[in-house]
């Protein structure tokens, strides 16, 4: 049996693929910044926060980590409007991705925060630093440095997960792959091309984050322990 593949018909739509890829990256960038921020806040709450806050964050983390992203997305996009909260697909996608990443990032950040040697914290307190200063200047940067590889992987996972956002008509890469195949009926080729672009994006994103972390995010901290 001969299977004929025609990639030309798909690649001819490159402006749409490019637009989709750019949108996927933009969606990921916004979600990553907000999601890691939320994760660090929750990580702080779980490691250092008051008991009631610890419990609340614990419930959030467990709920999100034990339910599929697509259900979270559908709940936000289809479910919330019945409470009067109407969202466009892009905003719903960002919220779902931030909420999702936040829960995983919280666990990762907590692991880093809890790995801080007690002596360092006591030393910082003895210099009359405020609690906020101790956390932001002494604990957080090396904690992030320690867990950055895991954080990077999680951000890549969320980027790949964003393919689902096409299902609520957010105009990212998989949405356009779907659109192209519905026009020229080259479904297999269309999804192969989109998958290859996702693979390239994930490699690119991982490299970028590996470079970005030491350079900007925890840069002034000496590496290692």
């Amino acid at each position, binding site marked *: 049996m001969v299977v004929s593949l025609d990639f030309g018909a798909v690649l001819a739509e490159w402006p749409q693929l490019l637009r989709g890829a750019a949108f996927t990256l933009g969606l990921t960038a916004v979600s990553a910044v907000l999601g890691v921020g939320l994760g660090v806040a929750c990580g702080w709450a779980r490691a250092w926060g008051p008991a009631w806050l610890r419990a609340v964050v614990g419930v959030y983390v467990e709920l999100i980590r*034990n339910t*599929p992203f697509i259900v979270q997305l*559908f*709940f936000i996009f289809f*479910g919330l409007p019945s409470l009067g909260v109407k969202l466009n697909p892009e905003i719903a996608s960002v919220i779902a991705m931030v909420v999702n990443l936040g829960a995983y990032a919280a666990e990762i950040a907590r692991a880093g925060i809890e790995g801080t040697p007690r002596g360092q914290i006591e030393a910082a307190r003895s210099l009359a630093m405020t609690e906020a200063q101790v956390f932001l200047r002494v604990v957080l940067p090396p904690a992030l440095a320690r867990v950055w590889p895991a954080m990077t992987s999680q951000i*890549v996972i969320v980027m790949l997960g964003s393919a689902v956002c096409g299902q609520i008509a957010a105009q990212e890469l998989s949405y356009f792959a779907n659109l192209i195949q519905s026009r020229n009926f080259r*479904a*297999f080729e269309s*999804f192969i091309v989109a998958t290859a672009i996702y693979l390239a994006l994930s*490699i690119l994103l991982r490299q970028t984050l590996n470079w970005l972390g030491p350079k900007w995010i925890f840069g002034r901290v000496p590496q290692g322990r």
Partner: protein
Amino acid sequence: MVDFSLWDIFRNLLMAARWTVLLSLVAFVGGGLVALGLLLVRLAKLRGAQTGVSAYVQLFQGTPLLMQLFLAYFGLALFGINVPAWLAAALALTLYTSAFLTEIWRGCVNAVPKGQWEAAASLAMSFSETMRHVIGPQALRIALPPTVGFLVQVIKGTALASVIGFIELTKAGTMITNATFKPFTVYACVALMYFLLCWPISAWSRRLERSFKRER
């Protein structure tokens, strides 16, 4: 319009959850078998196996599961005529699971001290004897918590099969929503059901991890 009570919604979702469980089991068992094969090929140091298997793992870990599902669905359609959604879903999820389990188990085998390999070699054990009597049992103990933990990822992964039309928990939720116009309640119930499936497994995996740490 038919009036759906909360119990009707819940009961219908519960019926559909059977398919989520079944698909998860198929993917987990199938993926486990494929992963075991890949791992052995890699450990036996067959020519090209190292690069081949790591490219395979890279491919499945670096692309969206949703795209893998679409590729399985439309790729099979190129050869056969009518692909049932459950077949495409089972195939894609099996391959996806196998890539992750290969990587997890490789780490576990690597965690067995090198001296164990050397000791087995010094006793003139063959590769299969070494695996069966020395490395296997030790790696298996280390592998148990992360493997159980990964089962949660597989269960959550099956939710995407809804997109290619397989009627499992998520798809049933969408269909019930269309009939009842109660998206908030329905998706909350769907999420709750996934949680009830996944959370005990997460907790079990964590407990295993803790008990292993204490022993060491």
